[in-house]
């Protein structure tokens, strides 16, 4: 905590900021080159589309996490909340099939219920953080445990399977195409674009950056801090619900090991993307690039034979730590 700011800061800083802004893109490019060297089919449209489609679950969640983290919060419960919501969607659809049939009626209600459950779960986190005045780390660590236990309980220790016929109705939502583009990619892109605009061009985006930068300043500047905070957690929950809505048609089942460690991947993607872990600055496009980077690493690990693909999450863990270290060195003044 010496106050030696001012010396030699200027030139070094400018270079670093430029690097920081482009860092994720450079990493993405390097990974693509590496992948292309390892495998001829790596850069094929099919493989790329596959990668982005698979990245869409984490991507949608990580976009929510970008808002939460930019406002200075954190949500560790996103993985278990996804699993819980997926389980609830399956239970609701299955229970509606006898009365409504396996068509879009039952599936549609299941989808709406999934979104609502996610938003409510997020609201619960948000209320505990704002009205309850509890550290978000503790609140969401607690709800992480609760949601994980609930899915295990609902599945009675086993696996919840989607009704076979309903699955036929539902599955195009993941595997279908719209104008030759896979549906999950369209939804992911749509969410990303709306979120990027919300972050950069709306009062909501400006206010969460202000709160994350300095909550006191925000409060003294007539910003309703608690309300904005609550909205970030609700938005996160809603996007978790959306991710679960896409997850169910892909796998048709949910159990206690569904979406394990998604919080790690989501937070890693946000940090890789250049959002400041302490809050105050966030960028959605960075998060999108971050998610694709993580997915590429997994893909590349599967394509080669030197490193076990089982180490994938070790890479993700290491990357999140390195990304924060890089952020720290970029930060010159406190």
């Amino acid at each position, binding site marked *: 905590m010496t106050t030696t700011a001012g010396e030699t800061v200027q030139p070094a800083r400018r270079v670093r900021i430029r690097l920081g802004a482009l860092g994720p893109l450079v990493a993405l490019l390097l990974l693509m080159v590496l992948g292309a060297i390892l495998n001829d089919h790596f850069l094929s449209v099919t493989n790329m589309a596959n990668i982005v489609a698979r990245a869409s679950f984490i991507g949608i969640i990580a976009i929510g996490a970008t808002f939460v983290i930019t406002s200075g919060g954190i949500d560790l419960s996103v993985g278990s909340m996804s699993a819980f919501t997926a389980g609830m969607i399956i239970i609701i659809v299955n229970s509606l099939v006898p009365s409504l049939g396996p068509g879009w009626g039952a599936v549609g209600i299941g989808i709406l219920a999934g979104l609502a459950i996610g938003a409510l779960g997020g609201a619960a986190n948000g209320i505990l953080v704002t009205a309850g005045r509890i550290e978000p780390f503790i609140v969401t660590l607690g709800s992480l445990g609760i949601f994980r236990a609930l899915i295990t309980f609902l599945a009675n220790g086993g696996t919840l399977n989607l009704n076979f016929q309903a699955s036929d109705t539902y599955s195009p939502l993941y595997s279908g195409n719209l104008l030759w583009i896979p549906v999950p990619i369209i939804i992911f892109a749509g969410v990303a674009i709306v979120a990027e605009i919300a972050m950069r061009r709306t009062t909501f985006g400006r206010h969460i950056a202000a709160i994350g930068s300095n909550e*006191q300043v925000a*409060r003294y500047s007539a910003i309703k801090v608690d309300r904005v905070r609550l909205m970030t957690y609700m938005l996160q929950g809603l996007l978790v619900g959306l991710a679960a809505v896409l997850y169910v048609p892909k796998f048709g089942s949910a159990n206690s090991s569904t979406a394990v460690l998604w919080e790690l991947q989501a937070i890693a993607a946000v940090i890789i993307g250049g959002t400041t872990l302490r809050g105050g600055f966030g960028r959605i496009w960075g998060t999108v690039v971050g998610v694709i980077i993580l997915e590429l690493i997994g893909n590349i690990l599967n394509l080669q034979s030197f490193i076990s693909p089982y180490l994938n999450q070790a890479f993700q863990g290491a990357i999140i730590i390195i990304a924060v270290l890089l952020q720290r060195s970029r930060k010159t003044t406190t």
Partner: protein
Amino acid sequence: MSTSDGPAIRPILSANRISKSFGEIPVLFSVDFDVRPGEVHAIIGENGAGKSTLIKILSGFEQPTSGTITYDGKAVSLPPNGEAEGMGIVLIHQEFNLAEHLTVTDSIFLGREIRSFGFLDVRRMRDEAKSLLDTLHVHVAPNARIDTLSVADKQMVEIAKAISRDARVLIMDEPTAVLSVGETQTLFEQIRRLTARGVAIIFISHKLDEVMHLADRVTVLRDGQLIATVEASALTPDSAAQMMVGRELSNLYPPKREPDVDAPRVLAVRNLTAPGITDVSFELRKGEILGFAGLVGSGRTAVAEAVVGLTYRSAGEIEVNGRPVHFANVAQALKAGLAYMTKDRKGKGLLVNMGLRPNLTLLTLEHHLRAGVFVDTASETKALDRAVRRFDIRARDASVKVGQLSGGNQQKLMLGKTMESEPEIIIMDEPTRGIDVGTKQQIYHIIAALAAEGKSIILISSELQEVIGLSHRVVVMRLGRIVGELEGDEITEEQIVRHQMGIQGKAAA
């Protein structure tokens, strides 16, 4: 009293032709300074004169760009990060360096704990702390936790800690800024005890009376230059002010407009009780500048925060333009035309990691929307251009982070931000704290111009001259209550000081 006269006593610590610059910005120019054992040497000067930099160099926290330090007769290079404590040079920072959760004993022995067989010898440390506190006449329990102590007691613990480290030079940065009158007296007694033991004391102060009361010698800095080092007995308030400011200040304040006694009452506060204040009543008329004087911690900021809804009031009424109001947050106060400009620029006023534009419009983003949702940056940029011209905000370019602006430009930006909301009533809390005289003068003229336009202003300031120079009426606070109200010719330094020190003990008339 020590006998600091005579060349026989060799300085224990001296700085010889010290210069310092941060990057390309020079802050000290070839300054000579020394302190003798048993002497109190005060450093005075305007904000930005280089006082803090000088004491940081004298204690090793900063290294001089050129020049030498002599300690105990030998040229030395002081180690950084407070390691000079080991050599007997201790700096007590303005914000204390005490871990709030430790006890007094823990704090005193922090980093050099007494051990026996590898374990902490808790009892011996406590006994030694107790006897140390006793010899210093400090009445705090060795087991008390730091966060339960008053500010004054924390300072005493810092001093005890310094003494336990055999400090030979004790450097204090504005030690009395946060102390009450009684606490200041205790501190002075403590300092006299220390000098009697041969400890050399260097201290920075903004209060001329206490400098002349306590110091043996006084060094005046201005704009990083050494102006003079004189015997305190040879100093008068006028000569000191003359040396500190170095120019005629007669037109520092704009001419006062005659207050309009028939102007409507825009704000009335009656019997307001809230955290830190009790039974506060006052009124503000349209176009008036109402000064709030009082010592630090007397409740002036607490009044402002209660009025605009930052804290909850437990009793009392507030009327704006005759209508009773009860603001739950700043947004509601703004809507009623009431704005509060905080004194804590970096902590509560501005986002130091962001640029000028988002800071300027943070309060009023809804004025810059398209289709009700999308922020119109072009409109924001126009607002910034206007504010830059109106308040003469100087920044290299608009993308520079606000934290890199000078205090004066930060203050002007904050003024711009507040005025963006077009308030009718503005509460300005220490609007010139920590900024240079030139910018102060600009701000004084802006304040007077706003009042002339018909805005009503509450001016909270700890600088008496400022309150006197600008206000039509002055309210004086003490210990959370209003203890006096002065008008016209009554507004004098003497009157205000008497009220704020409680000498004129009559309750609000």
